[in-house]
């Protein structure tokens, strides 16, 4: 069971990572300042890429989602972007997404958040 989010955490704390771990190419685990932990699989992340190729800039409709992504996709590299986001290079060659921490917290796949 994922840890229960601490009561009284501010929205900023909820979306600020305390620790980021990359599990090889399989995915990442972010532990947030409020104590919550989110585990993201590579395919899950790739299917939620927020870039303009994956989400229409004019309509906001998602163009590329998880079902379009081959099951074996992995994270080749991950790096931080300034203070606010993560950038991933996926093994399918896609590298244009910048995942803000605020966005990552919003799409946390755990039972409590989903």
């Amino acid at each position, binding site marked *: 069971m994922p840890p229960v989010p601490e009561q009284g955490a501010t929205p900023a704390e909820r979306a600020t990572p305390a620790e980021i771990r990359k599990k090889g190419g399989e995915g990442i685990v972010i532990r947030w300042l409020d104590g919550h932990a989110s585990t993201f699989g590579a395919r899950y992340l790739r299917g939620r890429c927020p870039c303009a190729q994956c989400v229409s800039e004019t309509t906001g409709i998602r163009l590329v989602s998880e079902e379009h992504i081959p099951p074996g996709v992995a994270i080749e590299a991950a*790096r*931080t972007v*300034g203070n606010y986001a993560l950038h991933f290079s996926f093994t399918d060659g896609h590298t244009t997404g910048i995942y803000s921490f605020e966005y990552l917290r919003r799409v946390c796949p755990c039972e409590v958040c989903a």
Partner: protein
Amino acid sequence: MTEMAITESRVLDALRSVMDPDLHRDIVSLNFIRNMRIEGETVSFDVNLTTPACPVKERLREQSRQAVLSGVPGVRDVRVNMTAEVRRPQAPETSRIRGVKNIVAVGSGKGGVGKSTVAANIAVSLARSGAKVGLLDADIYGPSIPIMMRSSGEPEIKDQVIQPVEAHGVKLMSMGYLSGEMPLIWRGPMAHKALQQSLLGVNWGELDYLVVDLPPGTGDVHLTLVQTVPVTGAVIVSTPQDVGLQISMKTLRMFQQTKVPILGILENMSYYICPHCGARDEIFGHGGVAHAAESLGVPLLGEIPLDSAIRKHSDTGTPVVLAEPDSSSARAFGEITGKLAQQISIQAFRSIPLTIIEE
């Protein structure tokens, strides 16, 4: 009666009662006390603060002295030497500029609010306090820092690295240098590349603070800055006029969205003192910025008057804090710089290391 010996641990215990007012911790657990020496009845030590521009330096010195004099029996004389070492926020080594401890962005909602003047005066004030300071003019629309700092000539390039120009004790780089006399007519990708080069391709050396004068508003340059380097925090310059203030809020929110802490907001052209009769006139209204700062929970760094001396010295290339250090405008800048340095120290202590642990 046998007197208790004066020991280092007794002195440290006494100093635990002295609190840093910004970091809300005592100066012993903050590891500020250095080089303690006990000779007979005399105790001497350094208090190593987080910034040479600390506005409460003298208060902390006196409090430390009193704490030891009254808290440790047998001490007759206490010599406190105030030193400073600017701390850096924790950030991954790979993404920051080597040798640069803090990057401070100066932004505004619209043009013409005196952002560059403020950036130049803050940079020179920090340098005057003893800090190592750089100033990057990233305003591609109107790079004015070289004029305000009276730096002529262009930076040299050695081994493909730009050597910054030095003026008034501050290392300078302007994106205006990249095009000489020609205006910078750049589309997004060019501005992006030019800013990256101005940040990472410059031999800044060791800096405590790198002040970045941004273009007005929000745009490509801002995004590139926050995506290229971990910015310690941002200062928003506004005028009391409502329109300017409302637009400033957009810039403020952009920084918040990209997790750049807001170090504070300051009101420029706050009021006008008539040079003939001394009357104070609040041309653009007053108190708007203070009110906004309060409702947003953002520190108000201060208010700067509309003073022809500030304009005159900017135009002739010697910021007012150097040209007329005792003027009320220079003092306003000095106070703002102190408060800003405090906020930067607070952020450096608060920051969380943003590194990806590979497993």
